[in-house]
């Protein structure tokens, strides 16, 4: 990847300053990855059409991004994009959507566009809630999490959007987080080059709403980096063995106390223990140890723990999940025109 100063991208691709997002929002990171991707591919601005719906994600392209933008109704961006792409297939048509917009109210359009394999790239920003409206339950909110409409814990289960898109027929499917900026930029480039329906889910931090969602404490300014670190901790790369050997100790009560006890119990081992934010379990003690079995044995004997969790439990798999070829919709429509013309 070539290194260019931020001012280069700002002058070339950004229309208005400042950004409309809350401090620490992941949307800026995603916009950054997107403009780098189109810049590296050398796609001229006038051939990029960004379509979005309603929600914070919709504001990534509109009105900040230079190029054509179509900021539409809630959930329908993919359907609007379908009309534009069919009539002008030369446009690189990119839909920015959120989990509520794209998988909730607009879920039907997502699966049908995937089924058609229309050459549209969907970047779905998943902050696990309806953030713009105040942090309500979304179809991606993890079971048990507290939101403004699930004060006693979410009784629903989330979609696995990668599986959903893949099952519906998307021919390029990836999932990354705002921690994975290099991988995400590469994936956006692959998706733009891909002939067919490409879907990228990006887990993104929302310090404003995820503070409640993840039960995070501490000053607001510390949250963005903490949540991004949580994404690093809470994900594992598809098809790659885990680096190192570690497990998590889930505290019953005060994590600080448990950390002290764990440190004490493992003092004479080649091991280290620290507090981390886990996407599924909250604040937990991560234990890295040479002899993981021995460490686990000692921890099981320890009080103050709910239980132990292994390195991948409750974690989210990231990477590229689908990359395949299938006749593309606008191409098939042109084939329909050829057939109609030869019919007497």
């Amino acid at each position: 990847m070539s290194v260019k100063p931020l001012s280069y991208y700002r002058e070339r691709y950004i229309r208005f300053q400042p950004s409309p997002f809350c401090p620490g929002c992941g949307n800026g990171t995603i916009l950054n990855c997107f403009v780098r991707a189109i810049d590296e591919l050398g796609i001229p601005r006038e051939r990029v059409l960004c379509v979005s719906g309603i929600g914070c994600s919709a504001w990534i392209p509109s009105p900040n991004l230079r190029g054509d933008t179509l900021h539409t109704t809630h959930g329908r961006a993919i359907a609007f994009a379908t009309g534009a792409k069919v009539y002008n297939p030369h446009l690189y048509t990119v839909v920015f959507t959120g989990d509520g917009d794209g998988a909730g109210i607009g879920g039907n359009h997502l699966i049908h566009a995937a089924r058609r394999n229309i050459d549209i790239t969907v970047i779905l920003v998943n902050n696990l809630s309806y953030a713009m409206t105040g942090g309500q339950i979304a179809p991606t909110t993890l079971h048990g999490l507290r939101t403004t409409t699930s004060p006693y814990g979410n009784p629903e289960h989330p979609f696995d959007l990668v599986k959903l898109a893949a099952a519906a027929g998307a021919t390029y499917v990836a999932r990354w987080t705002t921690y994975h900026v290099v991988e995400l930029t590469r994936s956006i480039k692959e998706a733009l080059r891909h002939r067919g329906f490409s879907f990228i889910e990006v887990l993104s931090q929302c310090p404003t709403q995820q503070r409640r969602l993840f039960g995070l404490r501490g000053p607001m300014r510390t949250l963005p980096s903490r949540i991004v670190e949580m994404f690093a901790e809470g994900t594992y790369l598809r098809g790659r063995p885990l680096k190192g050997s570690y497990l998590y100790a889930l505290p019953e009560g005060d994590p600080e106390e448990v950390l002290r006890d764990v440190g004490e119990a493992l003092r004479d081992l080649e091991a280290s223990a620290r507090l981390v934010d886990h996407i599924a379990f909250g604040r937990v003690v991560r234990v890295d140890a040479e002899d993981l079995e021995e460490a686990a044995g000692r921890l099981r004997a320890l009080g103050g723990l709910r239980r132990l969790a292994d390195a991948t439990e409750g974690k989210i798999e990231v990477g590229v999940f689908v990359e395949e070829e299938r006749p593309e919709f606008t191409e098939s429509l042109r084939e329909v025109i050829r057939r109609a013309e030869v019919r007497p």
Partner: protein
Amino acid sequence: MLTPGRHLVLGNIACAEGALRAGCRFFAGYPITPANEIAQYMSQELPRVGGYYVQMEDELASMAAVIGASWAGAKAMTATSGPGFSLMQENISYAYMTETPCVVVDVQRSGPSTGQATMPSQQDVYQARYGAHGDYEAVALTPWSVQEMFDLTVRAFNLAERLRMPVLLLADGMIGHMSESLIVPEEVEVVDRRRPTGPECTPFDTDDPSLIPEMPLFGEGYELLVTGSAHRPSGRRDYTPIYMERKLWRIREKVLRAEPEIRDVVEYELGDAEVAVLSYGASARPSFGAVRRARGRSLRVGMLRLRALWPFPEEVVSRLAEGVEEIVVVEMNMGKIIREVERAVCGRCRVSLVSRVGGVLPTLGEVYEAIGRAVR
């Protein structure tokens, strides 16, 4: 496409044929009775003229795709019936806000709800006028014959392109499913949207007295900002009241300024009439029969048929009220357009209603009886 000349076709086919002649090259739709033949014919004929038929997953998506295609440069349409028309309303509102030319055909059926799917009504006339949220002026045309399904569809496209807005064709299950002769002309008048010529463009305001801005397209390098949120003339989102007030005033006023041109009424024997029958669409047919019978019996009865229902031709009806003693309104609903008539009449003459619902057309006899009561 049909060759120029006379054909015996369904109203729905005439509508689709009119769309093709008007330059429609994109159709997105979702199956619904009694509008299906429009989509079927478009799926067959559009590819032959290099156009695109896309069957969407629902009516929300259909309307969305139509708007997307319009901004990519297509003359685009969809066709549906009452339940589907309800689902389209949010995006029709978006089309008013973004000033997107397109045509929506509602082949009305009997409701509420699923109602009588195969049977006609004129129950969506207010949905056409007020169904979408927010403030706007609607333009809706009401054909009464197969020929008018063709003619008014052409006109709907031309008005949509000229006014830069959605235009509605309010047909009904009877006209849509009726076979009648259609004369396809050698040529039809086709209007295209005004496009910017220079490198600069203000897509959402204009100094032009028509108040209709030029419309740039995606992919032309204008870096378009199209949004359903309140916006400045450039398209940039801005909630400042002056921008939204000006916008709402303009999208209303552009229609009102064009009203004399949109206005489309057919007058019959109104010169010396004491009683006027006012109707539109399918229910104007038995009305016309009744008026002719009454004239045959030397009753001083005339008729006003509305071919453009919205904007309501208030001036015409108001003038009519000066000359007649009673206006008999005939419609296939429980009395909707009669409210507009009463408003225009303002107590200057009597107004009565012949109304049938349940999927049946008012009969010639029923209208004739009402005429009889009106002449006393």
